[in-house]
């Protein structure tokens, strides 16, 4: 009996750490939540995971028509489908991490009022769940890639590059950014529910500030720094460089992205931790 752990519950003063130990202790919950998300998504809809593929494909087709055909925005000589699709799959991973986590407190309010577990489990689980969609989309990208490579004659050469080994890092960075910004947003929406309206708008604006429908090389030199401020720019460009061999790759900017993403993540976690203690009292 005496060996049992004693928990002391008292008002927390100041910073109490990120509680990584707590998250580790609840790792089973993390696993089960991810599994639950996947199964629920799979069971609920008729088409199931097919949505993961259809949605970006549909967007890609729209982009190809509007930006490629009508507006004639250059795609660095790449087939528009591959160009847009490559940007979109990494972007949609970011945007789903961001948008799902932005409402963490409001979505889980009923559970948070009934049971305690480290609240960070939910956002982390969301980021991992979103990877399923990313994986399926990547497989389909490869399919498109192979079709273009071997069945359709293209003037411009494209090929995967060594930078493909950077992809795990890019995914991690995207997850960090999505999670970090999502946590920031969740703190804000918990306090001001009106801000939920902004999430969608923010993601949309960020997308136009990221080279998805255009390429960085197409931007006038003196505006480039504006786009480069956005850490997603480097990630998307590097991702495209890795998959198609066209794009902007700079170790300096990548390092900057790593630093910015980490800062955003930790600041987001910091405010999230501060909020989670009081949130059930006013949510």
């Amino acid at each position: 009996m005496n060996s049992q752990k004693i928990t002391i519950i008292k008002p927390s003063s100041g910073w109490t750490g990120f509680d990584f130990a707590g998250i580790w202790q609840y790792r089973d919950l993390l696993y089960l939540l991810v599994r639950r998300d996947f199964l629920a998504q799979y069971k609920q809809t008729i088409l199931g995971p097919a949505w993961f593929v259809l949605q970006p494909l549909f967007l890609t087709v729209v982009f190809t028509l509007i930006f490629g055909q009508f507006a004639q925005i250059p795609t660095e000589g790449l087939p528009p489908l591959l160009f847009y699709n490559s940007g979109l799959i990494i972007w949609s991973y970011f945007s789903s991490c961001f948008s799902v986590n932005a409402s963490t407190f409001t979505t889980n309010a009923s559970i948070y009022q009934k049971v305690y577990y480290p609240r960070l489990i939910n956002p982390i689980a969301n980021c991992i769940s979103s990877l399923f969609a990313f994986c399926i989309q990547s497989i389909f990208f490869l399919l498109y890639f192979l079709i273009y490579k071997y069945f359709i004659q293209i003037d411009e050469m494209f090929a995967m590059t060594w930078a493909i080994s950077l992809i795990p890092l890019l995914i991690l960075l995207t997850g960090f950014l999505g999670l970090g910004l999502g946590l920031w947003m969740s703190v804000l929406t918990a306090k001001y529910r009106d801000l939920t309206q902004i999430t969608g708008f923010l993601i949309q604006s960020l997308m136009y500030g990221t080279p998805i429908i255009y390429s960085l090389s197409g931007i006038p030199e003196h505006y480039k720094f504006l786009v480069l401020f956005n850490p997603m720019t480097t990630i998307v460009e590097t991702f495209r460089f890795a998959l198609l061999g066209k794009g902007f790759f700079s170790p300096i900017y990548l390092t900057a992205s790593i630093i910015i993403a980490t800062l955003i993540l930790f600041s987001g976690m910091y405010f999230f931790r501060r909020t989670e203690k009081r949130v059930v009292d006013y949510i």
Partner: protein
Amino acid sequence: MDSSLAIVANNLSKKYRLGTIGMSSLREDIYQWWHKDKVKPYNNKEKNSSYISKTSMINKTEFWALENLNFNIPTGQVVGLIGSNGSGKSTLLKILSRITEPTSGEVKIRGKVVSLLEVGTGFHPELTGRENVYINGAILGINRRDVNERIDEIIDFAGVNEFIDTPIKRYSSGMTVRLGFSIAAHLNPDIMIIDEVLAVGDATFQQKCLGKMQDISREGRTIIFVSHQLHMIEKMCSTTMLLSDGRIKSTGKTKNIVKEYLEEIYPSSCKQILIKRKHREGSGFIKFSEISLKCTNGQKIDYVKTGDTFFLNIKFNSFSNDFKNLNTDGACVLLNIDNSSKQAIGAMSTLAIDYKINYTKIVRDGLKLKINRLALMPGEYFITAFLGNSDNAIDWIRNAYKLTVIDRACSKVDKKSLNGHGNLVLDYTFM
């Protein structure tokens, strides 16, 4: 911390802000912040400015849900927690289960806590019962291996064997509750916190749960049990804590505490003085002066239990001797019983049982009414008192007496399933 104690609370307090519960909108906050800056300069000149009154208003909207709670709960005890709505029970449970933080003070807890503030928290309707068992276990902080070991027991206890691989959305609410309780009960927490959740299940399952809880406590685990069903508290808990307005009013043997609580919620209604009642009709030669409740051994009581036999003592008085000239023809005392929704439930009349009223005698000695095996469900009833003869009403007071009927504690027969089906307890047997 003493090794024989499971929970120790020191000066535990929790403050809430009234009015600001719920979310503030950004507009309000910006407005407040803007006006704060604008009004502030005036404050320096005029002391009684609106800004000061505004801040003091904010201070007034705070309230203490819990105030300086100090208590110890020994390991292996089943402790009841009772108190009327708003007394702080839920807040205390939320602090103990780490859902919210106290404002000041601290609690030390030994071992793993599983709290059942709501059964089936986190159940996902699309997933099967089995999948939900694992998730629910994980939410309660139990890992998969431990759930694996006990999953058969859990399913058996809940009695959902046939449906365990069916999505939860197809479950009846009873099945969901049974599964939820079963999970928590089989995960061997050191401390189990149960809040009113068993009220949902049917009588058989409630019995089963009580049995399981007794088993758990016998294994040396601690249980904190909150319920408004006092007979369950009396059955389960050796010690009970009574909360009132965020403070511990008393702690001690369950029987005494339950009694104290009943006195708190049903304040002394044993005697109803009727002399000063204004709303009455009739000639007024004789007036009802008092109605009081006594149990069969003559002791005064405040409330009765369903099935009790008891006395209503009715006293009369008269300011002159004129009543002696009253017509005794058709003289009667009539007591109508209405329920709390003012529906007529029944009546008791001296005429109906051919009891002759003697005016002199009732003014001198009063009237004693024996009610046998009260066949009313728990609740509040209102008795209208009428005294009259064939000429007219002598005294007539509507809602003269409020009769409080409570559940028969520890009754063998569970009448819970009959709640909401009227006021009468019927005497019947099935063959």
